């Protein structure tokens, strides 16, 4: 089903690579859904982790932010004009 194919990966087991035991959970994006105004800077600055729905509001892909994208994630966090984005220690974005 074409329209939902980009979301199949969200619920498919194994979509997020397993992390070794004892390793920290990594950093994930946390959205304040009330502050968020649908400006979309986050999706422009971190397209690997943030998609926009048809109304311009962010959908986070599952799993933590990969190491090599952390700097981009921090930039997205500081760019958000509504201060609606945070980077938190958590295994998955919410």
């Amino acid at each position, binding site marked *: *089903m074409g*329209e*939902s194919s980009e979301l199949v990966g969200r619920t498919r087991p194994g979509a997020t690579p397993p992390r070794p035991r004892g390793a920290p959970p990594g950093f994930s994006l946390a959205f304040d*859904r*009330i502050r968020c105004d649908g400006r979309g800077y986050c999706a422009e600055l971190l397209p690997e982790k943030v998609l926009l*729905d048809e*109304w311009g*509001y962010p959908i986070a892909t599952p799993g933590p932010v990969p190491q090599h994208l952390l700097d981009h994630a921090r930039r997205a966090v500081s760019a958000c004009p509504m201060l609606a984005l945070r980077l938190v220690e958590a295994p998955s974005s919410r």
Partner: protein
Amino acid sequence: MSGSWFLSGPAPREGAETGRAHIQRLGAPSLTGAALIEALERSGLRGRGGAGFPVSRKWRSVAERRGPRVVLANGAEGEPLSSKDRVLMRHRPHLVLDGAVLAASAVGARQVVLYVGREHFDAAEAMLRALAERPPRERRRFRVLRAPVGYVSGEETAAVHFVNRGIALPTSTPPRPFEAGVGGRPTLVQNVESLASVALIARLGDGWFRDHGTLLITVTGSVGRPGVFEVPLGTPLGEAVERSGGRSHAIQALLVGGYFGGWIGAGEAWNLPLHPDRLREAGRSLGCGVVAALPASACGVAATAGIAGYLAEQSVRQCGPCVFGLGAIAAALGRLADGWPEPHDLVRLERWSAELPGRGACRHPDGAAGLVRSALTVFDEDFRLHQARRGCMMDRRPVAAGAA
């Protein structure tokens, strides 16, 4: 001992049970404080407001905080299909007050807020009268506030926000109420039925609860005698329907948990036990204990469309995904129900309901999405018929219309 604890005692037409009768019938609580929390943990009691969170864990999370703490007894009951909380408050107010007082002393709270739905006049009156019968040192701790009418008013952060600011809007978390709630203090938000269960466990112990515990359900829809019933934990859904007068018509599906819950086909539902853990294992949710029967002559698509329209209207409009996503879902369902769908409505419904969970400040969109997904499963043939504009063979009365 009969299986009725909440509702045994004086008959409803005699009004609320007085404090004296309450003590005579049940005696005084024997478990308090830390011992009570441990008993609650062993009992496995889960919250009855809808989320089903373990009660002992909630209490511990508040008890271990520093500074003054607050208990909020949640009797808002914003779910339109549910009546159990107001029936409980109306007839057994002392059970609820006991539970609230026990909670306050166990978590170290001096203040108790009683949050009763504005439209539940009799329940509020009974609670106030019962409060007047309590000793002054207990009475002093209570504040009674009337929750605004609305589906989201009973949401825990909305309840806290109402107490703080006079308007019931959910807030972003963190912080959760157990961290900072009423007046910025750690707050235990607990449903009134959960508190009543606590009051019973404090007298009869956790072993009693595991073996003989009961819960309140609201049975509605195409059953003989819709109403609030007390059933032992684990009662199969079919038996619960029988208790409420049996089916008035052939039933095609049950809505379990209220608008926040989900549809289950009658065949599958009949033997499912009314138990939070068992239902969870089966991938379902007890929610707030609503069991609504949809007759075979009704249209599942139309019923779902009506519910979704209500939920979309009840959104407090703080978060884009809820306003637009839920709005789009309700509109598509409406078109499908009326027989004028757009070509991709069904496909989009599946996508929107998959995209919605977790993208609002509260779980309102999640509940709605869960309901819609269950409808797409249970009524999938009807949905395909509607999408193909092959019309609807069923009549289209809403779910809680009751017997024909």
